[in-house]
């Protein structure tokens, strides 16, 4: 708690003191400083969602970050971003290093980065924590699940990137990274995994140990101005320690599940004047091995999103996000129904409507509502009864950035 208070105090001193500081790199020895702080409010009908207590309204929903960067030579830049977030009873404003790296841009078509690098898994993954860069408050949970953020957020490693014009066919942007993943159980991963294990004798029993991961994205900026098509992937192996509780301390034991996961997706973005459109499709293909038996599951996720900026201060957006826990069981035929769990736990379809108000260049206020059908991402650990198919939630958020 003390660390976070110090972090906030420092942030306030720098951030609220002067927004001009954000661009005054010249007076700070060439160091640029930028930051943001978002405070949100979540409220839901029927289920606790994202936050464990959202049914009664939850302010445990924030993100804050501050970054420092410097162009140390013509082609060499270094930087670091410190980040903290809270989401219900996870994350809890633990201060982390979000990214930190040295970036050597040798040519326009080839640069190299080393350090902690954000993963390019999807169009918005690298900016998912930065509220002021989009219209919606809650990202489509089909592709950007908040509790599983740590599994796809950053790698400690090296990456290559570049920009390649391809004549009349447009241009290509690419990035590829190889490195190790640091998954913090307290970030939400443990809660999410334990929720999926509810009803079994298994529970997580320590940190996930992830092997070397590889990730990348290529984007084709088409000759049609504003239209971009992209493809991305992430591959990694991990071992998840588990505890098998037989109900008898003498016979209960520790074990582990090995996971071999491949995520691949495609995306499309189109910007025409004040209209922005985006859509993504992703398959998460995971082989899980427990007690010598391997099972395969492919989750299917996609969304379409649109936003329109009417003027300097007002923007309206909407998305429709769909997730299927198992693409081979979209209608929940294989779900073992109980009094508290129904076939609709096989899917979740979320229709969102968002409004964004740019109060000035530093302050943004947003409000949004969601109408949801299905419960595949509704956590058992926060909801003892998940029998209701249709439900609602809403969010509001105030963001300051400089």
């Amino acid at each position, binding site marked *: 708690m003390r660390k976070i208070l110090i972090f906030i105090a420092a942030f306030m001193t720098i951030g609220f003191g002067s927004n001009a500081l954000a661009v005054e790199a010249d007076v700070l020895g060439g160091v640029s400083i930028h930051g943001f702080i978002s405070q949100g409010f979540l409220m839901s009908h029927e289920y606790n969602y994202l936050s464990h207590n959202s049914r009664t309204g939850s302010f445990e929903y924030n993100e804050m970050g501050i970054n420092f960067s410097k162009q140390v030579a013509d082609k060499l830049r270094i930087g670091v971003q410190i980040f903290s977030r809270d989401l219900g009873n996870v994350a809890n404003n633990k201060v982390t290093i979000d990214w930190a790296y040295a970036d050597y841009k040798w040519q326009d078509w080839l640069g190299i980065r080393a350090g902690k690098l954000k993963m390019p898994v999807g169009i918005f993954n690298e900016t998912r924590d930065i509220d002021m860069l989009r219209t919606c408050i809650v990202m489509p949970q089909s592709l950007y699940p908040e509790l599983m953020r740590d599994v796809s957020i950053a790698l400690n490693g090296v990456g290559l990137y570049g920009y390649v014009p391809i004549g009349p066919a447009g241009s290509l942007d690419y990035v590829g990274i190889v490195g190790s993943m640091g998954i913090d159980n307290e970030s939400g991963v443990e809660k999410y995994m334990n929720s999926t294990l509810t009803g079994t004798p298994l529970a997580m029993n320590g940190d996930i140990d992830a092997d070397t991961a590889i990730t990348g994205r290529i984007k084709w900026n088409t000759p049609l101005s504003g239209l971009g098509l992209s493809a991305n992937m992430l591959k990694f192996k991990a071992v998840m320690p588990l505890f098998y509780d037989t109900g008898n301390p003498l016979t209960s034991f520790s074990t582990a599940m090995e996971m071999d996961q491949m995520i691949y997706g495609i995306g499309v973005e189109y910007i025409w004047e004040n209209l922005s459109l985006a859509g993504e499709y992703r398959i998460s293909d995971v082989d899980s091995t427990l007690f010598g038996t391997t099972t395969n599951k492919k989750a299917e996720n996609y969304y379409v999103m649109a936003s329109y900026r009417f*003027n300097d201060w007002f923007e309206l957006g909407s998305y429709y996000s769909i997730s299927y826990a198992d693409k081979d069981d979209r209608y929940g035929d294989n779900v073992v129904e109980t009094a508290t769990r129904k076939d609709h736990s096989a899917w979740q379809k979320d229709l969102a409507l968002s409004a964004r108000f740019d109060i000035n260049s530093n302050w943004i206020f947003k409000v949004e509502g969601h109408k949801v059908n299905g419960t595949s991402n509704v956590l058992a650990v926060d909801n003892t009864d998940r029998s209701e198919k249709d439900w609602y939630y809403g969010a509001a958020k105030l963001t300051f950035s400089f």
Partner: protein
Amino acid sequence: MKLKRLMRIIIIGLGLLVTIAGTVSAVTAGDVKIIANKNVPASSISSDMLKEIFLGKKNTWDNGMSINYVTLDSGETHNDFLKTYLQKSDAQFNNYWKKQVFTGQGQMPKAFNSDKAMIDFVAGTNGAIGYVSSTADTGSVKTITVK
């Protein structure tokens, strides 16, 4: 039920805001002059290259000199430049650069609040390129033609 009613009120309110907001925006077109430091090894560039420069994708001139691109911070000339050459609004341009900044992939270009300040900087900085209104006195810099 209360939440449903609240959402209905929000949706109706947003509809009203859309109606009001749609009546407010207006942009007037104007001429923009692209300027560069006199040692920049080009007198004309393609519109694609200009876009690459101001989106931070192209960082060196053909002779290896670093490109130092600068912008105006607001105004009609700024908006016209963004719309004509980058096909972006001011908000979209700012968002693009904020994305670079907050992912560590780039630094915001230096911005000036007047043509004179822009011209003075470009005139005194190797490899610099910027833009000003067509009526500005650009005797101390090179004017670049966009093909």
